[in-house]
């Protein structure tokens, strides 16, 4: 059983890291987004290995089902020009920072630290406690009620903000008149012109 889990874990890690590497290095943005989706999926599988069913499903639902779709949409709507440089001028600096962070800071800290693992022999919690939606739900309305409300407000604000930012003002958008609208418009203009000329005549 352990071996099986280790193999699965190894595969998943390979997929997560490999896909993430492809995301940052591949030239085509669409391909990058697709690799990103693969990475998300592998992370969801990792959550399953970690026995966090609910988070895994939410990961699939939100990341794969919504965010990646949003990204794909954005890419298609913006049509980024291909053939140009993939990375910024100072990409080597970024690479240095990342590598340094990983190799010098994160890895030694994480691996070297002795975590306070309470019961290394087995899982203490029952499955209900582990991935219980009910517990999370209760948590949302009891312990984390403030966080929950804040998240709600954040979502609302983000929704409105996204709409406001992406919304094209009606005046800026070229409105195509239909035939009947154009016709009525012309008639009205004509009527106005006639009225004006009639008034002018009357004045004369």
């Amino acid at each position, binding site marked *: *059983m352990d071996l*099986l889990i280790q193999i699965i874990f190894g595969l998943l890690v390979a997929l997560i890291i490999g896909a993430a590497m492809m995301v940052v290095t591949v030239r*085509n943005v*669409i*391909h990058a987004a*697709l690799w990103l*989706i693969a990475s998300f*999926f592998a992370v969801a599988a990792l959550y399953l290995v970690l026995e966090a*069913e*609910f988070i895994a*499903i*939410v990961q*699939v*639902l939100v990341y*794969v*089902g*919504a965010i*990646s*779709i949003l990204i*794909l*949409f954005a890419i*298609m709507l913006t049509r980024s020009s291909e053939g140009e440089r993939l990375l910024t001028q100072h990409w080597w600096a970024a690479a240095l920072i990342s590598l340094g962070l990983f190799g010098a800071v994160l890895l030694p800290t994480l691996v070297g630290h002795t975590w306070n693992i309470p019961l290394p022999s087995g899982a203490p919690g029952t*499955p209900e406690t582990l*991935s*219980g*939606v009910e517990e999370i739900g209760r948590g949302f309305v009891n312990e984390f009620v403030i966080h929950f409300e804040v998240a709600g407000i954040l979502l609302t604000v983000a929704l409105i903000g996204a709409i406001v930012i992406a919304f094209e003002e009606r005046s800026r958008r070229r*409105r195509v*008149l*239909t035939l009947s*609208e154009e016709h*009525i*418009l012309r008639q*009205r*203009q004509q009527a*106005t012109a006639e009225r004006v000329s009639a008034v002018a005549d009357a004045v004369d």
Partner: protein
Amino acid sequence: MQDVVNQVINTSFGWGWPSWAIALIGYLIVAAILFGIAPFQMLFLTLYERRAIARMQDRIGPNRVGPEGAFQPLADGVKIFTKEDIVPAAADQWVHFIAPCVVVAPTMFMFAVLPWGPGMVPVDMNLGLLFFFAISSVSAVGLMMAGWASSNKFALVGAMRAVAQMVSYEIPAVLSLLAIVMVTGSLSIVELINYQGGLFISTRDVASVPDWGLGWFIFSPVGFLAFIAFFIAALAEGERTPFDIPEADSEIVAGYMTEYSGMKFGLFYLAQYVLNFLLCAITSIIFFGGWQGPGVGWLYAQAITPANLQGDWIFNVLAGVLGVFYFLLKTYGFFFVMVWIRGAYARLRIDQLMDFGWKFLIPLTLVNIFSAAIWVGLTKWGAADGLAFVEGWSPLMRWAVAFAVTLILNLGAYLFLARIFAQSQDERTRQDDEVLEQLTNVA
């Protein structure tokens, strides 16, 4: 399944295999069975749809290959297998290749949590319902890939439409299910089915009701409105008429499938029909009790279950057969409704579709969630939850009051929203006058 495998390998043969091997074998067997069933469903449904819609159009439909055309899907399958696989020169080869797989795989995943009969569920997941819908949203990625990789305008437009439609109709679908989940208090599909025993009234609401397996959610106002909203959303998710805009052949030839041929095209079809089957199945499970029906509950009570180890295996078989029969009957019934709707209606326009989803269905489902809250409060809560006045009522009385209140609420909401929506539709044509006014003033 694992019990059976364990029985065979460890008890009968005495090989003493470890539990994870047993689990693996059990899951593999179930997966193999499901992979056998899924394409079969697609084959059957294509024939079923063609025959049914032909009848609606005073025709006979395919009846040449085999008895009553039974082998027509096989013939079509052979034809599609042997067709040349054409990939456009400008296409992104790999993405073009992978897209059908990405579309098909989630539909296969969705079988994992589908209960076929009493005790016949591949994985009794605690979060089955959520899993079902989370996975179904993945195929949108595949559609996007297909549309983009074809490097064809029609395909791209079709894919964008498909994805926009899927994403926006997931919301009313999930919201309408939320009402049901509120009533049952569980996301497990098996639990959802168990809830629906009874006769017109669920046994969980009023315990004294005889359990005929007919306490379906459709019989409550909350469930009925949720059913309407969910079924409409399911039509949109499954890209069925009147929401088959992504593949509107009169506008954008075949949508994202335009540049596909041969077996890849077949895979898209497979995904679509399997998804339709699954949507029909989940509709029948959530609102029509799945395998619940007269007799199944009684038979299953006599069978060998974790709760009742002294049962007789023959009852397992009987309950299973009857349950699967009820389940498939309902599922194919819903597919008939889908075909029926396809036979009767024209297709909406993409903006009308979005309007309908966002301005009509979502408010309706929100009202329904409110109704569900009232329902739960009136039938389940007591003084401890702050509803002391319902304490004295009998369960039937509580049910009746809840029924009446939610019925009035839902009906009123429906009529009101329908009126508002119709008016807004009328205003869409009249709004032009407003714009004209503005334009006249500008000019």
